[in-house]
């Protein structure tokens, strides 16, 4: 495994992007950083600029106005950068897939490394997902 990906599995800095979400997933992501779950003790930090991000957490149902912005943000992120689809909307656009203002699913737009289902996913599910992703990266896949 290259030094870059090795570093990715140590303390992950995450950047959050909402592409048209109802905000439930976004709040549950923020919940990870509050005392009960406290992922900061694992070195996971929520940062304000995508240029320092190791992982991008994407929520939302791929709203037409948000998708170009989301793509720009992905391009600005230093690679390697994992993309995590959080929540049913990011997985498949959920019940909004027939809407006139919703585009294709996330994994047709960006390369997704981790899918965390749920509406919204519990913080424990998100932690579980990240642990599995780190294990996968360490195995060198």
């Amino acid at each position, binding site marked *: 495994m290259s030094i870059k990906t090795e570093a990715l599995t140590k303390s992950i800095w995450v950047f959050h992007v909402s592409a048209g979400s109802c905000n439930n997933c976004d709040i549950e992501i923020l919940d990870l950083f509050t005392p009960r779950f406290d992922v900061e003790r694992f070195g996971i930090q929520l940062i304000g600029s995508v240029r320092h991000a190791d992982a991008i957490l994407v929520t939302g149902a791929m709203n*037409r*106005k948000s998708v170009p912005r989301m793509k720009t943000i992905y391009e600005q992120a230093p690679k390697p950068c994992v993309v995590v689809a959080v929540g049913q909307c990011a997985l498949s656009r959920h019940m909004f897939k027939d809407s*006139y*203002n919703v585009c294709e699913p996330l994994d047709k737009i960006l390369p997704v490394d981790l899918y965390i289902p749920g509406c919204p996913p519990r913080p424990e599910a998100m932690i579980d997902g990240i642990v599995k992703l780190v294990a996968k990266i360490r195995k060198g896949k």
Partner: protein
Amino acid sequence: MNMRDRIKEGLGNKILEWDERSARRIYFSVDAKEVYKSVEFLFKGLGLRFSTASGIDLPEGFEIIYHFSFDKAGEIYSLRVLIKDKLRPEIASVSPLFRGAEWMEREMWEMLGINFKGHPNLKRLLLADDWPEGEYPLRRKNVS
């Protein structure tokens, strides 16, 4: 005088139909040309609170309902107008009366294509800038 009577007295023969659906839901309609004066009377004259406005594409025209809340009694007075011209639908904007109407009218314009004459800032609110011109999501396509 209760609110119903005050409205009937104030709007007089502008009222085309009056329908008391239930104790707290009163629907009445005026001609589209009278909308500004009617809303002015309801908002400024009677002090009712503007709650929301909904537009709908009906076969007979575009109907807009302005819902006003009389909070002291928990009643909603819904003012209905019908814009019969479906090719170039337009109506006077009530935004000059109170700023709470601005976003509401912008939304109806972009969803239904109704032109609100006199609106200070009629531009896109929700849809993307590259949304095609002339495509109004809430218009019905299969009805002639």
